[in-house]
């Protein structure tokens, strides 16, 4: 009958079994290259100032057009 494994025995077996292994060289190199390529990708953030300016100019333009149209189609006001 097999004897039960003692703690020290088990630790010895663990030391023998769990050895560091090395990843393949090609993997290390290709991953490094990929990471460097990724770093070259520039993520452009939206330009909020430009967006605000565009919205504001749109609003101002719209109001101006409405005012001009009102002047054009409301001759009474002109006569007064």
């Amino acid at each position, binding site marked *: 009958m*097999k004897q*039960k*494994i003692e*703690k020290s025995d*088990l*630790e010895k*077996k*663990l*030391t*023998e*079994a*769990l*050895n*560091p*292994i*090395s*990843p393949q060289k090609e*993997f*290390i190199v290709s*991953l*490094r290259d*990929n*990471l*460097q390529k*990724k*770093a070259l990708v520039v993520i452009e953030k939206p330009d909020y100032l430009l967006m605000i300016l565009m919205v504001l100019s749109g609003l101002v333009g719209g109001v101006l057009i409405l005012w001009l149209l009102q002047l054009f189609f409301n001759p009474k006001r002109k006569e007064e």
Partner: protein
Amino acid sequence: MNSHTGDRQKKNAIIDRAISGDEEAFGQLYQENIKKIYNYIYYRTGNKNDAEDLTARVFQRALKHITRYKRTKVPFSAWLYRIAHNLVANWHRDGKNKRELPIEDHVYIKSNMVMPEKQLEKNQTVEYLMHSIRKLPQNRQQVLILKYVENMSNREIGVVMKKSEGAIKSLYHRTLKELRKYVNKDELKF
């Protein structure tokens, strides 16, 4: 100033450079840690393809979130282990761990002069041991891998696992106790 403090300052300088977008600095951190992280993931997943895939994701995530690192106040490698642990946990949760562990991959031949019989015996030992380790809860597998594969002290393991040194010591003893139970069962089967 002793050499230990000097080393730490050097490392911090590299990390600062990496945070500011220096590719070479990140490359240095990558070279220092790639083998450790790969090993950890390899033993947690049990196969080369997933180990490579998850290792790549660890470093991609680290590169993306490197600005968050400083807040953790732990060594850079410990931060990487935490990322690796989270990714492996997700991998197990998503049920991608169905592939069987190829035994030949696990056997590390220290000497080329090992006799076939001895090798066979060793393969078998490794096989039942790995089989038993995989039955353990994730945190217990993590303790064993960090201790035996990465040769970490209880204090270092504690930093990675966010536990005290005492808690790791106690977890390790409970792990051995549980593992011994499984090993005895598995050994009878083999």
